[in-house]
């Protein structure tokens, strides 16, 4: 049996089960859905699971109980959100996964949910690594890696993408890899400490821009020159990061756009119209460097 169909209507009751709101990226994403709601004819029910996968499932449950037509779900974790996908399907609600996916071994696009809309976190890490290899000017790269929240999938994937590339290059060593919890303050504190233990560091890879900015602050407080003697690279493409690139303090940030609202609207309408949807609607992430940072900063969040 196939996916539940979606009839074409003027307005839809749409569920958006956000996982958490404790960082600018998530907030921008939620806002993007709210902003799209009116133009797309959505009656939007947005919930917030405050970082708990279990609560996110319960939130989806309460949306199903309220009779939503469509579900947009950024699953907090790969596996624990599978029940949410299954329940929505059982209730005849087409589900689109946003920005993260679920374990494909159990729940498959085109069968249990319509499609996954998002980037490839592993690829993001890989692209940062590749850019770094090209643009690093020294001989020996001594790398400090600031990881995201321990155990979270973007942290795991962004580490994997980056580390796998670096492992193939003898002149690159990751001397320390510690969590900064995706937060600026933690990123700064961890960097301050690691800088003491590894004063010879010359590359900092942060799993998101917030930690990268924190690391830049730590470097500056310690009298180092980010951008000159230490290359800082990261992922997201926030306004602060673009500014840092313009200021020459940061090398690159690979975009990971939170503005999913319009894309979600478009894909949903196509689905309602009966078109087949790709199992993975891949978002084309741009890469911001000193070449294009200035022209993109106004659109950044």
């Amino acid at each position, binding site marked *: 049996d196939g996916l539940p169909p979606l009839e074409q209507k003027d307005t839809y009751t749409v569920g958006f089960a956000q996982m958490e709101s404790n960082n600018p990226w998530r907030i921008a994403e939620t806002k993007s859905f709210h902003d799209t709601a009116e133009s797309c004819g959505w009656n939007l029910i*947005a919930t917030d699971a405050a970082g708990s996968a279990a609560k996110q499932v319960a939130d989806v449950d309460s949306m199903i*109980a309220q009779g939503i037509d469509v579900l947009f779900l950024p699953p907090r974790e790969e596996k624990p959100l599978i029940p949410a996908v299954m329940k929505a399907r059982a209730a005849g609600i087409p589900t689109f996964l946003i920005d993260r996916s679920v374990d494909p071994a159990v729940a498959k696009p085109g069968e249990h949910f319509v499609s996954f809309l998002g980037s490839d976190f592993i690829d993001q890490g890989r692209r940062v690594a590749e850019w770094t290899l090209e643009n690093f000017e020294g001989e020996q790269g001594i790398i400090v890696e600031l990881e995201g929240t321990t155990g979270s999938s973007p942290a795991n994937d962004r580490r994997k993408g980056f580390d796998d590339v670096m492992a193939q290059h003898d002149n690159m060593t990751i001397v320390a890899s510690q969590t900064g919890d995706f937060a600026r303050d933690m990123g700064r504190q961890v960097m301050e400490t690691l800088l003491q233990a590894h004063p010879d560091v010359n590359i900092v890879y942060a799993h998101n821009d917030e930690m990268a900015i924190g690391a830049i602050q730590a470097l500056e407080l310690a009298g180092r020159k980010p951008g000159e003697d230490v290359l800082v690279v990261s992922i997201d493409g926030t306004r602060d990061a673009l500014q840092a690139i313009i200021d020459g303090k940061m090398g690159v940030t690979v975009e990971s756009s939170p503005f999913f609202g319009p894309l979600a609207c478009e894909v949903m309408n196509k689905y309602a119209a009966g078109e087949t949807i790709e199992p993975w609607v891949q978002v084309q992430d741009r890469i911001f460097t000193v070449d294009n940072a200035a022209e993109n900063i106004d659109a950044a969040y």
Partner: protein
Amino acid sequence: MLDTDALDLRKYLAGNTQTTAVWLALILLILFGLLRYDNFGGAYNIASFLNYNAMFIVISLGMCFVIMTGGIDLSVGSVAAFTSVVAAYLSPYGLDVAAPGAILAGAAFGAVNALFIIAMRIPPFIATLATMLGAKGGALVISGAETIGVDWGSNFTKLGMEKAFGTIPWAILIVAIVAVLLWIVLEKTSLGRTVLAIGGGEDASILMGLKVNRAKAFVYILSGACAGMAGLFLASGFGAGQPLEGIGWELSAIASVVVGGTLLTGGLGSVPATIAGALLLGLVFNILNFENGRGTISLSAYWQMVIRGGFLFVVILFQTRVSSQDQKVS
């Protein structure tokens, strides 16, 4: 001895106004939800609400026992996360292995707490705070910092995803049985009475010759086992062992227990009222989700936090008002 039942009930209400408050609040909130939202009272919502809250109820029950001795257990959330990983690893062997495995793992953490508190005389707050960190770290270590998928082929996921007789989620049914057993232990056994006596005065209980250490060990191991059971539900109901879950569960369990009229200083407590407290706090989330669905106002995540805090404030005001009237009456 010739008391009629009616008299007893009146006496009960007079002597237990704190627990009366929580029942009243619960009923009011349910009525509010029923009147305001369509589908709020629908079978789907009720079943999924109970299924999700089974975890919190069982943790609150364990916490209630700990608090009755005047202690506290901050480790429950992390322990549940840990045991969910254990359960996920054991899931291929089916429920009859995974369930005891998870509950024993939880009980083991409870035993560590008991050891810290009884043998090493570390204050419960600190001892269980340490266990909280340790269990969280342990969960991440044994899971390799990833969620661990369960075996969907075995009967493991039945527990969290299927319903007994097609209507009652298994998890809540089991919690109900646990609750009845614990109620009997509390009201009808000397162990339960000792638990209460310790909270009422530990020194006095020792001088009265009660088996204080045994009862204290019991409550911490019980609380650990309850957390283990919650971890089991977590893994079974969500299909994965989740090392990152359980953050803040201890606080909501404590809040449930207190809203249920149990004194944090110990010596008083009630099993049914604790359940009511857990349901009450869980219901707030459910209601907020339904409120969002009405579309009149969209409550952002942070507004929801403000409202939840405000609600707790109101419930507590209500409770103190009711119980201060109680004092005046007597």
